[in-house]
């Protein structure tokens, strides 16, 4: 595992080298994740780079990224561990003629040979280094699952009834992300450092574009940022984030468009608008001369 100096400036620098432009408070948050060994809960609108933080952190620390994507109905067996039933059954059949007692046979089939490790167990059983554990979109999981996470996030240990309590040798760096589709419990929030990422300021967004798409024309980047800023002020259902700005910039580069005009924006509107109503609203604004002048 690569060691980075544990100060905020160096984290900012290391993230920039990986193409992720952080602000000071994000860097402080990551610094505290390292210093306090506490999980970090990152909230904010979609597409502002919440998931990316964990990915870049893993690259910066040169360690494994273990990702758990949450969804409605996610249960402990999918997230933590599962017994390999087929293998267990086969083993039982193969050893039917052996002289082992039922208790011995049971102990054998519930050993780690038959254990399938899922992301959470994988994250706490790394013997060499602390991995980065990304629990993505935790707000999509059920409340029961959220309650289950509490033990893991507070103690970094997991209890498997057949094997006992497994404690992490190297505590993982845990990043949880949420889009606020529902309120997370107070208990979960209290176990985490809390960081809110909002849409970036224009200057920062320009930096992000330049850093992720090094060949982009400065004027085009400025135009994209300026239009995105105005679009974000519109009462849209799905407000485009930085991910959409990057997609759009990438699309325009591929199409060899060096400058934005009404026609180009209309042709590439699919990169920004992700809802029919929003599409119509932006299109109407364009037709009303909304883009004329200071782009």
């Amino acid at each position: 595992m690569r060691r980075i100096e544990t100060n905020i400036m160096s984290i900012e620098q290391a993230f920039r080298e990986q193409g992720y432009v952080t602000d000071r408070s994000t860097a402080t948050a990551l610094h505290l994740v390292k210093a306090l060994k506490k999980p970090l809960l990152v909230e904010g609108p979609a597409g502002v780079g919440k998931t990316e933080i964990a990915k870049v952190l893993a690259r910066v620390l040169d360690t494994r990224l273990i990702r758990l994507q949450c969804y409605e109905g996610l249960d402990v067996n999918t997230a933590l561990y599962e017994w390999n039933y087929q293998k267990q059954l086969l083993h039982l059949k193969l050893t039917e003629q052996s002289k082992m007692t039922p208790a011995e046979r049971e102990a054998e089939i519930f050993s780690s040979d038959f254990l399938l490790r899922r992301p959470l167990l994988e994250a706490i059983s790394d013997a060499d280094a602390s991995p980065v554990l990304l629990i993505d979109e935790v707000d999509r999981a059920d409340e029961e699952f959220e309650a289950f996470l509490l033990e893991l996030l507070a103690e970094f240990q997991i209890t498997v009834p057949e094997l006992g309590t497994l404690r992490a040798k190297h505590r993982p760096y845990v990043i949880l992300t949420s889009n606020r589709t529902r309120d997370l419990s107070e208990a979960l929030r209290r176990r985490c450092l809390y960081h809110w990422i909002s849409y970036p300021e224009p200057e920062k967004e320009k930096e992000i574009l330049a850093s992720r798409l090094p060949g982009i024309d400065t004027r085009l980047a400025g135009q994209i940022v300026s239009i995105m800023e105005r679009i974000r002020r519109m009462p849209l259902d799905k407000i485009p984030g930085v991910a959409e700005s990057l997609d759009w910039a990438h699309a325009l580069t591929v199409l060899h468009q060096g400058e934005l005009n009404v026609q180009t924006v209309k042709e590439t509107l699919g990169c920004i608008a992700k809802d029919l109503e929003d599409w119509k609203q932006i299109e109407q604004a364009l037709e009303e001369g909304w883009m004329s002048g200071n782009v």
Partner: protein
Amino acid sequence: MYRVLSGHILRFCRHLRQNGVNVGPGEAMDALRALEAVDMADERDFHSALRLVLCSNPEEQEKFDRIYRLYFHSQYKKDGETGVPLFSEEAHTGHEKKKEELTTQRENGKRQERQAPGSAFAALSNDKMEESKGFSLSARLALYDVSSPVTPRIPQEKEAEMLKSARELSHQLRLRKSRRWKPMKHGVRPDIRKTFRRSVAYGGEVLSLARKGKPPCQAEFVLLCDGSRSMAGIAEMMLQFAWALTRSAKRVETFLFSTHLKRVTGQFKLAFGKTRPKLSVQGTEWGGSTRIGESLDAFVSRYGSRLLNPNTIVIIASDGLDTGGIEELEVAMRIIRRKAAGVIWLNPLLSLPGYLPEARGMKTALPYIDVFTSVDSLFSGLRWLKSIR
């Protein structure tokens, strides 16, 4: 030095707690540990570290920032002791000021600046902040109460009927099946895991098949109660219903509105057992005139993404007599209708003979309503439930 700092932090935490930020001793300890890990001489790091540890949602961050400025950037007096500010006003860097200005500009540019529901701080203008310099911190924080608090009464009469009705509503509404597989006696799929676990006792012989299925989702409720003057009497009854529903259903969110919206879910939750909650609201949320459009718009933009989902039933109790603009009402109703499972509008005027929903607000909202019924229907059996099942 460390003791001085820890004293500051503990006192600061106490102020946060007094102003509704949920900070316990654990967080205070974490705050001190966090400060050890950053460069305290740099105020940006000092501020970020405390904010990361002591806040757990954007609403708390908003309160934190304001209290932080009052605490660490001004002379304050507390319990007869003269305090020295930790940071001078000049130390409040240009960077932060610029950021605040940009944020303000952005907010102004948005559809319309709204007062944060439940946040008394938003009501204080910058001028008042300036004027308040030199007062004690508590005195200055008290300035935020711009209008006198009101305590709406939750009636006791007909409580049993209301509870029955609320229980019926929460138990009978079944919207869709969950995606989660759960062990069920008559489930549609065999539960291999459970079957096998059961068979271990018989040496691997499968004697009976365990099954799993998808249980129905429980409905979640959002109640938006119009507490304006024209709803006098009825609004109290709706509070009684909200209280009864909070006791019966798993997830209930309650909001009051008049000219402003206020979330009172927390106050309902704080009441234990059969104790009725004592609600504390402002005149703009109870007993004022009605701005349904603006209030619903505030609800959608601040809470919509979190509280509206395919399991949500939105119950709006209002007479629809609006003094605000109808454009916002239409947009908000459209969004609510699209995101929620159903919209129920309880209108007390419907029980009056000859009433027609001709009022501007009511007419605008009607196309987006699944069930339009009178408040009295809460006592006379919920036959209309069928139309949202």
